[in-house]
């Protein structure tokens, strides 16, 4: 292979593209993992992510600094997730219904604020390259994964989160406040989903556009389930989805038997793969026992 151009080879490009596209999924899936292992279903991941994507674009645009964008995305994600936490932890709302509501809310709020701030509802102004991330989020996602996996196995807080989702009464009997752990986990999932959104709008593309998450929050959730609620397998599942997305991009415009395949058919590949993975290949996957159940004392 040509010494100079090894990084231009197709396999390397595909691999690089896989990691790029997997990065937002890894962030979001880690968020989903935290919240689900603590016992709170997080179907609202999509909405958190969308809010984060918008906030990041606005922050980066305003401060002309992608890091400020990421910071604000994390903050907005946490704030938005806290609203969800109020509903489902404080008021014990049905988590699927409340999560769906949060997704609708995000889908409506983002173009609304976009219109107020920039007088267009479609997308935020294009960020110049200096105000965008390079590969930082991609490294960041994997560093964060390592950190989280360590937290998970080796610290008290990891143990507590696991018990909050598996046997919250045991945690309570050990003198630890279950709902506090759940709150923190949901808020943290908001931060992580916010960062996932930031990766979308300030790294993978150059602005926020309407509904730009395009189901990636759900895909991240699928990765959590596929990964059997464990950090490393979940991240690997994200890589798989990232890979399918990368393949999909390369297949656009491909011809089969001289007939052009409509681009929409190619674009649905990752989604079809998600369905197949969830329906067929996960085997026996056991959710945390108290997932979706509000904690009841006594």
């Amino acid at each position, binding site marked *: 292979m040509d010494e100079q151009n090894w990084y231009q080879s197709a396999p390397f490009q595909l691999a690089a593209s896989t990691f790029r596209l997997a990065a937002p999924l890894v962030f979001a899936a880690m968020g989903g993992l935290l919240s689900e292992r603590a016992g709170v279903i997080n179907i609202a991941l999509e909405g958190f992510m969308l809010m984060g994507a918008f906030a990041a674009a606005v922050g980066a645009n305003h401060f002309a600094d992608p890091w400020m964008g990421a910071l604000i995305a994390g903050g907005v994600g946490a704030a938005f997730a806290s609203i969800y936490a109020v509903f489902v932890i404080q008021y014990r709302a049905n988590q699927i219904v409340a999560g769906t509501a949060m997704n609708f809310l995000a889908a409506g709020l983002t173009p609304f604020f976009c219109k107020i701030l920039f007088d267009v509802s479609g997308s935020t102004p294009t960020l110049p390259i200096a105000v965008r991330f390079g590969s930082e989020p991609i490294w960041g996602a994997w560093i964060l994964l390592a950190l989280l996996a360590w937290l998970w196995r080796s610290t*008290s807080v990891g*143990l507590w989160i696991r018990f909050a989702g598996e046997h919250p009464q045991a945690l309570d009997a050990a003198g630890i406040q279950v709902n506090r752990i759940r709150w923190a986990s949901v808020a943290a999932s908001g931060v992580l989903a916010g960062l996932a959104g930031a990766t979308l709008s300030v790294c993978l593309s150059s602005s926020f556009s309407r509904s730009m998450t395009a189901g990636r929050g759900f895909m991240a959730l699928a990765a959590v389930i596929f990964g059997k609620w464990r950090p490393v397998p979940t991240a690997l599942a994200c890589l798989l989805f990232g890979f399918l997305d990368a393949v999909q991009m390369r297949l656009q415009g491909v011809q089969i038997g001289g007939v052009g395949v409509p681009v929409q058919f190619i674009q649905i590949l990752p989604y079809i793969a998600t369905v197949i993975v969830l329906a067929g290949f996960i085997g026996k996957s056991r959710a945390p026992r108290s997932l979706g159940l509000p904690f009841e004392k006594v």
Partner: protein
Amino acid sequence: MVHNEEFSGKMALSVPALLELRGVSRSFGALRANAEVDLKLEAGTIHGVVGENGAGKSTLMKIAYGMIEPDAGHLLIDGVERSWWRSPREAIQAGIGMVHQHFMLAGPESALDNAILGESRPTGRWSFLPPLLRPLDRKGAIQRLRKLSDEFGFDIDWTAEVETLPVGVQQRLEILKLLDRDARILILDEPTAVLTPQETDELFKNLRKLTRSGRSVVVITHKLREVMQFTDEVTVLRAGRVTARLKTKDTSAEALAEAMVGRKVVLRVEENGKSRTPVSNESVLQVEALTLAAARDNGKPRLNQVSFDVKRGEVVGIAGVEGNGQSELIRALIHPSHADCRTSGQVRLLGVDITHTRDSEIRSLGVSVIPEDRHEEGLLLDRSLEENYLLGLQRDARFSNRGWIKRAQLRTLVNEALEAHDVRPRDAEAKARGLSGGNQQKLVIAREFSRHPKCLIASQPTRGVDVGAIESIHSKILEARSGGTAVLLLSSELDELMGLSDRILVMYEGKFVAEHRRQQGSSPYDERAIGLGMSGVIQ
């Protein structure tokens, strides 16, 4: 009576009580769960707290452990008054530990992680981190725990996932967990419900070891025999109030039962059924090679070639530690046509193969069921007694005219049934939820007996039922037996099985491992032998 001498010796020194509760009251809405309850726990003693379901035992202990705050009352530790715990954490720090009836263990986590949950010992190297983020000191913990488990002769595989450990081991894990947190006061809520008689003896032997080292143990139970056999002192609760506070050696099971119920109670089942009618030769229920495959590929079959029969006018009891296939057996008998209840084998009712019969038809062929969990399977708690009485009988000609309910007739029959079975309140419109456990069960029995069943499948018929109602439920079952009903009785109470059954089959890991026939005389069964079968020693 060795324990009592030791105990009275300690009394003479007037060591302050380890734990004392004074005038504790707590209400939940209109219900007074505890009313001015006093409890004094002396050092080095085993203290029984007895009472019927709903008498307030658990509430009292949860107050002592900081899970519930009392409305009023005082708390004394080592004779010194202090403010109430704001959380279990404070109680734990003061040396109180509780083993809950349903163990507080997460199945997929290791025994070690379950044991160290909630402890935050400083670990030197990492002390710059906030306690939350400090790495768990698993090595140190395992050393401490091994030392403790050696001291008390417990043997636990610390790396095993808890759900793979037998129940008795899980209980020891719970106790070690408390000892590791330096608990001086151990509260055990119904600790023997899931144990074989041998395991029960073992447990109390271990608890006695703990009291020798100066710790004290509170045992919440409704099994009077255990109280008489193993405790030093006993406090009896009835309807939230203390009705007796005694030294065990100065009292009797009968006196305790009277204090629990508020009237004289017949404790032994045999006295009701002195003259047993002979069992006929006619098989009502015949089960052949009933099998239910394992839930997972690698597991053992949940039911393994189970064969037995129940004859007219016979009570066949099934003994076994919970989780050895008893519940699966009952489900397979009620839903033989479902693939997830039965994978192979045959069930016959009065000679007719019902293996492929629909569930509702099996019922109308004359099978009645008292389900294990009456809240889940027996009753609609938020509906009236009348509707609950109708449940499953709605197509019966007595109540239904081409799909229309005969309201007036239903009301008459319900009122008669409430009267006949002494269900209180006698109000057909009352909600089932408002009834005590005993009255709920009487309602279920009234319904199931109204079909005059040829075969009765009774699962834990007196679980969570007060002593008074137990008596009446037992006599109903024996009445049905005399009337020619074939009764299959499943119970975790050996006394109940031994009192009622003509035969006892012992189940272990999905198989029958022993059969015991009723003998003449005052002790119809050899309890030790049954216990050995339950623990899998004989196979």
